[in-house]
Structure formats: structure tokens, C-alpha cells
């Protein structure tokens, strides 16, 4: 896909996610907006998945290890045709299958149940291990938050991925620098992430998480056959695209009221219009 087309899809996905959270008056919007460009690129041109055959055993796997960012995942899956767009309107509602966190078996395109941080990356390691045992061709991608790296289980998984030479596994960390209680560097310092992952036996790529050329190049570089898993540390802006939410930790998991919602919605709509050349 062209960068212009990806930008437009990402802008539409941001608006959908933003509306989902407002309508539900709950949900995690900040980290969904920061990850949206990556999600759009993954489902636009990287993942070998087929919305008509979501359980194809040979498909690439995607695990949303930062499982609270369902607004980003569901908006992306709906735009890709995994389920009807109108279902997004019932996100987090009692009788809708689009629950707060991803539940495999309930949502087409969701490959693993996640939401408790640190668990998804371990499952991704298991998926990659199964692929290796079977001589399968599929690749496994997992998206983590930088706050999620506080979890010890992430580092257990990192050791295992290196031990089993899972070079078809790519972990992507959404380094937006914020978690619920504030800045990651204040809540629990995790840097230097590049040196840590390298010391754990991983290839490390860093890039701007809002630049499609950089993201594309980094994901391409992850396709190694050198026996090492790759981590992509993508620098992002939490709340990207909605000015009052950007870099403000209070929008980690909170829905805006009507006045603020309309302000942000206007910004997102203006972005779409700009990209459509209107």
C-alpha cells in the first residue's frame, strides 16, 4: 500500500477507536492511538491473513500483548473486513462479542486471549515454537506496551525466545513513555531497552512509530534467519492525533465527555478530509 493510503486508513481507524471509547464511555484510547500507524501497516501489508479464513492454520499470528488496546485492534480488524463495521458501535456492551480485552474464539482475527499484561508475549513464543516444530512458514508478531515491560514474565519470555532461536518472532514495543500512573521512567524505569533486549539475545530495531517508511524498513529487517528473535522499539506519542490527549497519561484508560469528544472528533475528521484532499 502507498503511504498516503496507509495514512488515510490509520486516520479512519483513529476516528473509529475514538468513537468506540466515547460511545462505551470506557476503554483505552491513549495507547490505541499511539499504536494505530503500526496496526494499520501490519494489517495493510505485512500480516499474511485472510478475513474470509481467519482460522487458517498457516496464517501469520498477531498477539495484542497490550490487550487493553482493543479499540486499535477492533477498528483495524473491522476495516480489514474481519467483522462488520457496525459491530464496533457495541464495543464493551453486554451482548456484544467485542469485549473490553481480546478473547480468542469470540472475535474473528483475535489469535490469543490477552489483557493481563506480560502474558501475550509468552503465548507468542509458544506459537512461534509450534511453527518451528511443524516447519511452518508463518510468522508471529506481538505488540507490547512499554509499561508492560515492568512485568517479569516479559523477560522470561524474552529468554525463551532466544533459547529456542525463534527468528520468525517479532515483538513490537509501543514506546510512548507513559503508563497509567505517569511516566514510565518515574513509575518503573526500564531503559535502556535496546541494550536490555540485545543482552537477552534479540536483534533490536528502533524507529519512529508514526513514520511508515521507518516502520516498514524495521519490520523488513526483522525478517532474519539468523536464529534470533527481533524486537522493534517504536517511539510513539500516546494519544496521537487528538491534541488534548497527546502525551497526557490521564487518557490511558478514560473516555472524554461530550465537549472534549467533539473537539477531538473535529480534529480527526479534519485529518481524514486533509488526506482525502477535500
Amino acid at each position, binding site marked *: 500500500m502507498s503511504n498516503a493510503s496507509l495514512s488515510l486508513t490509520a486516520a479512519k481507524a483513529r476516528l473509529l477507536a475514538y468513537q468506540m471509547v466515547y460511545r462505551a464511555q470506557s476503554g483505552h484510547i491513549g495507547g490505541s492511538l499511539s499504536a494505530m500507524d503500526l496496526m494499520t501497516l501490519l494489517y495493510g501489508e505485512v500480516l499474511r491473513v485472510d478475513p474470509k479464513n481467519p482460522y487458517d492454520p498457516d496464517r501469520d499470528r498477531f498477539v495484542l500483548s497490550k490487550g487493553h488496546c482493543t479499540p486499535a485492534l477492533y477498528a483495524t480488524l473491522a476495516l480489514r473486513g474481519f467483522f462488520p463495521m457496525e459491530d464496533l458501535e457495541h464495543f464493551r456492551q453486554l451482548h456484544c462479542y467485542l469485549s473490553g480485552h481480546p478473547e480468542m474464539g469470540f472475535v474473528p482475527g483475535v489469535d490469543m486471549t490477552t489483557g493481563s499484561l506480560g*502474558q501475550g*508475549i509468552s503465548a507468542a513464543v509458544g506459537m512461534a515454537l509450534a511453527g518451528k*516444530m511443524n516447519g511452518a512458514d508463518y510468522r508471529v508478531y506481538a505488540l507490547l506496551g512499554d509499561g508492560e515491560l515492568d512485568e517479569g514474565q516479559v523477560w*522470561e519470555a524474552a*529468554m525463551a525466545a532466544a533459547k529456542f532461536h525463534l527468528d520468525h518472532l517479532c515483538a513490537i514495543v509501543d514506546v510512548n513513555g507513559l503508563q497509567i500512573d505517569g511516566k514510565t521512567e518515574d513509575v518503573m524505569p526500564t531503559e535502556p531497552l535496546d541494550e536490555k533486549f540485545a543482552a537477552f539475545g534479540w536483534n533490536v530495531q528502533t524507529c519512529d512509530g508514526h513514520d511508515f517508511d521507518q516502520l516498514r524498513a524495521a519490520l523488513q529487517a526483522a525478517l532474519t534467519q539468523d536464529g534470533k528473535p527481533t524486537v522493534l522499539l517504536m517511539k510513539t506519542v500516546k494519544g496521537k492525533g487528538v491534541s488534548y490527549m497527546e502525551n497526557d497519561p490521564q487518557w490511558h484508560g478514560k473516555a472524554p465527555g461530550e465537549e472534549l469528544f467533539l473537539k477531538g472528533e473535529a480534529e480527526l475528521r479534519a485529518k481524514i478530509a486533509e488526506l482525502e484532499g477535500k
Partner: protein
Amino acid sequence: MGEKIATRVAYGKALVEFGAQYPDLVVLDADLSGSTQSGMFAKAFPDRFFNLGIAEQNMMGVAAGLAACGKQVFASSFAMFATGRCYEQVRTSIVFPKLNVKVVGSHGGLSVGEDGATHQCCEDIALMRVLPNMTVVCPADAFEMRLAVKALLDHPGPAYLRLARLATEVYTETLPGYRFELGKGTFLRPGKDVTIVATGMMVGMAWDAAQILAQQGIDARVIDIHTIKPLDEEMVVTAARDTGCVVTSEEHSVIGGLGEAVCALLSQTCPVPVVRHGVNDHFGRSGKAQDVLNYFGLTPQGIVEHVHRALALKRG
């Protein structure tokens, strides 16, 4: 009654025995493969065994990922770590999505012995039993363990299998007409005065207790509940009706395990006196396994005493 054998040894042997028949079987361990006996499988099928190191939480997640891609996984560790340390990984990554993973906890109960309270897990059955979708299995002896492993290989979905460290006698092998079915209790001994419902190692002790009781003129029925969830409600209710009182016996806390499962069932179906025999809300302690069991009253004599309490309640 032949030589004594631990159920963990029977587990390792069964994995090897059935390994070729189940090509999708993958076995995981967390640096305890010598103790859990999964190491036997590692030796026989090195391509299908993975040691995850001392990292049980990741092991359960890896098990979930393998199962999500078509493998059937037995993930072994000590009961304390398999169910306690990574309780939430088991809950959310494995049991909620109904993945085909058997969580295997060796060294269940007090008979761990010398390692003491930190390693004597008397809460695992409670922790696993409370999970929706979960099957909980605690075989009585080595013979039954082999059949339980086979049954679990044919049972898609999550389950917990408890193994014991201590070598014990085999009771079930010579039972006439014995067959193993998940969710169905095994009738060991008929009796009309009281029913002893036991699981795991306590089944053998219940058998021995019944012999002591017979000498006292008390006719005790003995039931082996190897599957604590789903419980064989029909067998337990029938026994309660026939005998009018029940003693449960388990190498586990009296809170949350077989005893409470039986109480919950009978209170709503056939309210008769039920006396729970097990670990009375204590942590364990170090010592030779038999000494620890004696200290906490997990003996045939302990069961006999509980039977007398149940009979007194029944008389009113």
C-alpha cells in the same frame, strides 16, 4: 499388593508409553523434569520436550501458544508453582480460552515431606476447581494415573492433574471390573453404615480404614473420586442416601477441595452429615513424609476417627 510406586513415576512412564500414539503431544517443564518425571518423556521424545527454565509463568503462556497452534500440551512443575505461582497465567491464557493444556502439579500435598511448608501444596485443588471450564484430576495410585493420562490425552481442553511424590501401594489394579472414566467415581468397597469419599493417596488409606472399621462392626463404603471436577454427583448422592453419612478424605486443605465439593453437592440434594478429613487450615512442616502425615492425622486411623464423628452425627 505389589511394590510401592509414586504416581509421578506412573505419569512419566505413561507419557513415554503414549507419546508415539499422540504425535501432537508436547511436554514442558520448568527445571524440575527429574522430580516431576517428565524427564522420561524428554529422553524418549527430545524433539517434543521443552525445558523453560525456572520460569513457570512463561511456561504456561508458551503452553497456551503451542495449544493455540494445534499442539496438546502437558506442562509440569511442582503443584505449588504450577497452580499457585502462575495461577493467573493458567486462568487467563489457558482455561478461559479453553486451550488444550494439561497443567500438571507434582508434589501435591503434605507427602512432599522434608522440603516443608513452602513446597507442600494443600491448596492446588481449590485453586483449580474454582475455575470455570476446568477439569481436576487426582488419581489414587500408579495404576489409575496411567489411565488418567490416557483419558486426558483424549480429552480436549484444559485440565489439572495432580501427582504425588511419595511411593505408595497400588489399590485399583486388582479391583474387579475397574475402568477409568473422567468424571466418574470408582466404587472400591460396598458398605451400608457410612461412605468414605477419598481422592489421591487417601483412597488407599480409606481402604485400610474400612478394614479397621469392619473389625469394629462398621460397614463402610469406599469411593475413589479421581475426578474432583466434574464431580460424580450420582455416585456421591446415591452413597449418601444409602449410608446416611459421609466422610471425605483428601491430602489437601479441608477448604476448597473434595470435602467442600461434596458438602456443596449434598447440602442441595441429600443433606446428611458430612465430616471432612484433610489438612485443617494449616501450613505443613518439614519431616519424613510418613512422619508429617502422621503428625497431621492423615492416616487410616485419622479417617476412622472422622467416621466415628460422622456416625455420632447420624445417630443425632
